[in-house]
């Protein structure tokens, strides 16, 4: 043991520094994400997929600081009952049901309706995939399903390709948020096309959530630095060797990325630029 806290992941979202007392920006929490009039204190949306146990999942969700989490809708089984729903109720985390496994707009609409009835929310993470090999969104079905669900009163969080044109189209048909992938689901490859993500962000007037492909904390920080409003991830935490510690890492990474985006980074330069004065060097002539 190096320190008394080793083995316990830090869970506090404190971006304060002791070195700058009185500087409010250092102690202020990250600004909330507002979607459909609801303010979420965390810009990390952690999915529940991939966790080997419900206890471990609960601990990771808490360590992540998330206030919104995804679930899938499946047949009720007597063995597990509604234990996940009860866990999330106990933790006070808002539920974002997904339409995972749907290949058509028709299936996605039915799944969303079932989720609204079961969970009492009209928020839905709309996922309409093209095939099981790539799990990539089917743009045609996705756009159709978004239109249908918006008409039915849903707040659609559209999981989409990193396609700036499609992102705008989804917004135009009423998506509450667009969620471009960083990389295919479960790959952990990070943000493969940062340029497209920046382009999507620069033209969007609804929140942009980087969804899928995140592998580690720096991927999430990058997404936020590119201007995304939030990051959604699941297996990067739930399948990490230490999910609770990784959840805490993401909590800090998302906050750090948000702060860095707001702080305004220095421009990249071709050549070195000294930050120490050259004048007054010991032994210099003059």
């Amino acid at each position: 043991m190096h320190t008394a806290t080793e083995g316990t992941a830090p869970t506090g979202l404190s971006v304060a520094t002791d070195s700058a007392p009185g500087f409010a920006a250092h102690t202020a929490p990250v600004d909330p994400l507002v979607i459909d009039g609801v303010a979420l204190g965390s810009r990390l949306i952690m999915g529940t997929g991939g966790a080997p146990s419900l206890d471990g999942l609960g601990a990771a969700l808490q360590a992540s600081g998330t206030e919104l989490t995804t679930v899938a809708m499946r047949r009720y089984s007597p063995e597990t009952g509604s234990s996940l729903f009860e866990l999330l109720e106990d933790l006070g985390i808002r539920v974002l049901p997904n339409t995972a496994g749907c290949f058509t707009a028709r299936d996605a609409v039915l799944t969303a309706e079932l989720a609204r009835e079961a969970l009492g929310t009209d928020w839905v993470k709309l996922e309409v995939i093209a095939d099981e090999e790539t799990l990539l969104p089917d743009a045609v079905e996705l756009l159709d399903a978004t239109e249908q669900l918006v008409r039915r009163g849903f707040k659609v969080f559209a999981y989409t390709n990193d396609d700036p044109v499609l992102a705008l189209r989804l917004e135009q048909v009423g998506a509450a948020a667009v969620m471009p992938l960083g990389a295919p689901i479960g790959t952990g490859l990070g943000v493969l096309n940062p340029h497209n993500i920046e382009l999507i962000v620069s033209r969007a007037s609804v929140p942009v959530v980087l969804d899928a492909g995140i592998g580690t904390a720096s991927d999430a920080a990058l997404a936020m630095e590119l201007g995304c409003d939030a990051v959604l991830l699941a297996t990067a935490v739930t399948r990490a060797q230490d999910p609770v510690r990784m959840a805490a890492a993401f909590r800090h990474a998302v906050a750090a990325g948000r702060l860095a985006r707001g702080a305004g980074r220095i421009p990249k330069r071709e050549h070195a630029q000294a930050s120490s004065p050259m004048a007054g060097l010991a032994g210099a002539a003059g």
Partner: protein
Amino acid sequence: MKVRINGRPAVLDDGATLRDAVALTIGRELDDAGNPRDGRRLGVAVAVDADVVPRSNWGRTAVVDGTDIEILTAVQGG
């Protein structure tokens, strides 16, 4: 009568309603509005022949022989 619940054969009393089918499946008592008597939220939804039946209608929706009932809940997913 014989029905299917989540793809499995099940037997319900004649005159049973959807509410009876749900209560039997999840092992909780439901009131007239379809809410559990244990005071917690239910967290399940029902589809019959690919149409969602709102909870408030369960008590007055008669089940007939051969009905295909799907009862869904939230599971882990990203």
